[in-house]
C-alpha cells in the first residue's frame, strides 16, 4: 500500500515533470545552435555511408555547420582511427563503428564518447530515440554507457535460386540439413552451378559462421573457456567447412562478400549465404530479380538465431566539440534521414521507418524485396549480435575461428585438431580479457 502511495504521490509526479522537461527541451531544440562549426566524420566508404552522404548538403543547410568527410575502406578507416586515437588527437569528431566487432575493445580503451545523456536530453522533437532498435542500442551499450547510435540493421541471409530449386524438385530449405541435402542434389542435377557459397576468407568467416553455430545450439564461450571443441561447436565447424569444401566454388578460402555477390549475381551459384546489405549488388542488372528467394538462414537444432548487427555512429572521446558532433549523429540517425536511406536499400534500424507507407510501397514493388524485409524482420526480433568471441580482443578471435574453418576446408587438419588448436589460442585471448 505504502509502495503504491509512494508511486502515486512521488514517482509519478517526478516522471511527469521529467517528461514535461524533456518535451520543453525538445521544443527549445535549435538545429542552428552550432552554426559555423566544422564537424569531421571518419566514414567507412560502404553503401551505408554512401547513402547517408547523399544528403550531406541537407545537414549543412539545416545546421549551418560544415561536414568534413574523411572516407576510407573499412580496414583503412580503422587504421586511421587507431592512429588518431592513440595520439589523443581531436582530428575526428564522429566515426563509424561496428559494436559487434570492436565495441568492447574501443569502449575499454575509452575511445567512445558517452552518448547516454545527449540521447536523452539534447534531442529534437521528432528524433524518437526510443524508436531505434532496442537490440542494437543494447549491443552498443558498454558499462552502462551508450556508445553509438545505429545507422542500419543487417545480417547474413540465405539467397537461393528458385528456378534451380524448381528444376531439381527442391523445396525452400527449412533446416541446415535441408541445405546440405539441396546442395547434394543440385550437384548432380545442375553441374554448371556452384551449389553453395559463403564466406571462406579467414577474417570474414566469423560473420556467417556465427549464425550457423548459434542455430546449431553452440556458444563461443562456456564456463569461461572457449568451446569450439564442444559437440555443437565441432558440428558447426564440420558442417560449415563441409558445405564449402564439397559444394563451394574452387578458391572459396579467398571469398568474401565481393566474390560471393559476383558469383551469385552472375548466375553461377544456387545458394549463397551473404549479408542482407548485398541485396542491391546482387540485384544489379536485374538478372536475379525474378529467380531469387530470400530467407533467414535455415534452422538448426536450436532453431533460428540469426546474426544481427548494424553500423553505428560514435562521437570520439577526444573530440573538442562533442555537442556539435552529437547534432550530426542525431541528424544522421533521425527517422527522416533513415527513411531516405531505406529507399536506397539500407535496412532501417527503426521499426517505424520499416512501416512507413512510402518505404512499404518500395518494398511491395518487387517480391524479392518483400522477402528481404521479412528476413530482416526475423533478424530484428530474433537476432544475436555475437560475431566472434564477446571479448575485448574480438577481432583477433575472428582470426582463430577463420583459421579453424580454413584448416578444415583445405583438409589440413581433422575437426578435433582444428578445434583444439583454436580453443588453445582462444583460451589465451579470453584470459587476457
Amino acid at each position: 500500500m505504502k509502495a503504491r502511495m509512494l508511486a502515486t504521490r512521488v514517482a509519478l509526479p517526478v516522471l511527469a515533470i521529467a517528461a514535461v522537461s524533456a518535451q520543453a527541451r525538445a521544443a527549445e531544440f535549435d538545429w542552428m545552435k552550432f552554426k559555423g562549426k566544422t564537424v569531421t566524420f571518419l566514414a567507412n566508404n560502404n553503401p551505408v555511408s554512401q547513402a547517408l552522404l547523399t544528403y550531406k548538403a541537407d545537414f549543412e543547410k539545416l545546421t549551418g555547420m560544415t561536414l568534413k568527410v574523411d572516407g576510407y575502406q573499412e580496414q583503412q578507416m580503422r587504421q586511421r582511427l587507431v592512429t588518431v586515437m592513440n595520439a589523443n588527437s581531436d582530428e575526428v569528431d564522429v566515426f563509424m563503428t561496428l559494436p559487434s566487432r570492436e565495441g568492447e575493445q574501443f569502449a575499454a580503451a575509452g575511445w567512445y564518447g558517452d552518448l547516454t545523456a545527449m540521447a536523452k536530453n539534447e534531442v529534437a522533437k521528432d528524433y524518437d530515440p526510443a524508436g531505434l532498435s532496442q537490440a542494437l542500442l543494447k549491443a552498443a551499450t558498454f558499462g552502462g554507457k551508450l556508445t553509438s547510435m545505429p545507422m542500419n540493421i543487417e545480417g547474413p541471409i540465405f539467397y537461393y535460386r528458385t528456378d534451380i530449386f524448381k528444376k531439381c524438385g527442391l523445396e525452400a530449405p527449412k533446416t541446415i540439413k535441408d541445405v546440405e541435402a539441396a546442395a547434394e542434389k543440385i550437384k548432380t542435377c545442375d553441374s554448371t552451378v556452384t551449389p553453395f557459397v559463403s564466406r571462406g576468407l579467414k577474417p570474414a568467416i566469423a560473420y556467417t559462421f556465427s549464425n550457423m553455430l548459434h542455430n546449431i545450439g553452440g556458444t563461443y564461450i562456456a564456463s569461461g573457456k572457449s568451446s569450439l571443441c564442444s559437440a555443437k561447436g565441432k558440428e558447426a565447424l564440420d558442417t560449415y567447412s563441409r558445405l564449402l569444401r564439397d559444394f563451394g566454388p574452387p578458391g572459396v578460402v579467398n571469398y568474401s562478400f565481393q566474390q560471393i555477390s559476383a558469383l551469385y549475381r552472375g548466375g553461377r551459384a544456387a545458394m549463397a549465404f551473404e549479408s542482407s546489405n548485398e541485396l542491391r549488388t546482387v540485384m544489379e542488372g536485374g538478372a536475379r530479380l525474378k529467380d531469387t528467394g530470400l530467407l533467414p538462414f535455415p534452422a538448426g537444432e536450436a532453431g533460428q538465431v540469426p546474426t544481427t548487427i548494424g553500423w553505428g555512429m560514435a562521437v570520439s572521446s577526444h573530440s573538442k566539440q562533442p555537442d556539435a558532433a552529437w547534432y550530426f549523429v542525431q541528424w544522421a540517425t533521425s527517422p527522416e534521414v533513415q527513411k531516405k536511406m531505406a529507399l536506397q536499400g539500407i535496412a532501417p534500424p527503426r521499426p517505424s521507418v520499416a512501416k512507413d507507407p512510402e518505404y512499404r510501397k518500395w518494398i511491395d514493388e518487387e517480391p524479392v524485396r518483400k522477402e528481404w524485409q521479412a528476413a530482416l524482420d526475423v533478424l530484428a526480433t530474433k537476432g544475436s549480435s555475437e560475431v566472434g568471441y564477446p571479448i575485448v580482443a574480438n577481432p583477433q578471435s575472428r582470426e582463430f575461428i577463420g583459421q579453424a574453418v580454413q584448416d578444415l576446408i583445405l583438409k589440413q587438419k581433422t575437426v578435433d585438431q582444428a578445434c583444439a588448436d583454436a580453443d588453445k589460442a582462444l583460451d589465451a585471448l579470453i584470459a587476457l580479457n
Partner: protein
Amino acid sequence: MSDTAATLTQDRQKLEMAALSAPAVIFTIAMIAFPVVYTIWLGFQTFSSTGKQTFAGLANYTKLMSDVEFWHGLWITIALFVLSLVLQLVFGVWLALVLFHAKRLPGIVRSLFISPFMMPPVVAGMMWLVILDPSLGAANYILQSLGLPPSDWLASPTWVIPTVALIDSWQWTPYVALIVLGGLQSLPPSVYEAAQIDGASAFKTFQRITLPLLLPTIVTAAILRSVDLLRFFDIIYITTQGGPGNASNTLNIYGFRVGFEFFNIGYASALMLTLTAIVFGAVLAFNRLRGAVAW
C-alpha cells in the same frame, strides 16, 4: 683589406650561411629521425588490447624469438624474396637484351613492354585477383581451353607464393629490364669487336663478355628490388590478406595486422624494426657484392 679582416668576413659569411640553412636542415633531420626514434621507443612498450601502454624493455623482442608466426612470416618473406628476385633478374636481363637488339621496335611497343610497373600495385593486385579467380577468372578458362587442368592459384596454400611471385614479377620485371638496358647501352663496343674478330659465338659473347660486364648493373637492380621485395605488402594485402591460412603471411603483413587489427602497436613496432634490420642487412650484403663485381 688585411688578411685578418678578410678571414673574419669569410668566417662571418660561413656562420650566416649555417644559421640561414639550419632551420631547413634541422627540420629535414627531425622529419627523418622522429618516426624512426618513435618506432624504436614504441618497440619497448606493450599495449594491452584496450590500448593501455606500459614500458616493457626488451619483452617484445624476447617474445619475437619464440613467436611461431614471426618465424613463419620470416620464412615466407625470404621464400617470396628469393623466388621473385630470381624471376625478375632472369627475365629482366632477357627483356633488356630483346629491347637492346630489336632496335627497330616501335616506341609504342617498347612503352607497352615497360608499362606494368607504372601501374599502381593495388590496381595490379585487383586485376590479377579477378584473372586468377578459380571460378570466374580468365586464367583457368585459358588453361582448360588448352586441355590443361585448372589451378586454385591464390587459393592454394602450395601455389599462393609462386603465384604472388609471378604477379610481382609481371609488374617489376620491366623495371629491372630498364635498368639493365641502360647498362647494356653503356658497354664499350671495342670489346664486342674484339670478340667478333676472335670468332666468339653469340652465346659465348653473352657468357664471357656481356654478363660479367653487366653484373654491377644487375646487382644495382637487385638492391633496388630487394628493398621492395623484403617489405612485400600491397599485392598480398589486396589478393590474399596473408591466406589461405597463413600461407602468404609475410612479416610486413603480420606486423600490419598485429598493429592495426589487433592494436598491439608495441609488438608491431618490434616486428617492423626487425624487418628493417633484415632489409639493411640485405642491402649491405648486395653492396659488398657490387664492390666485388665492379670493373
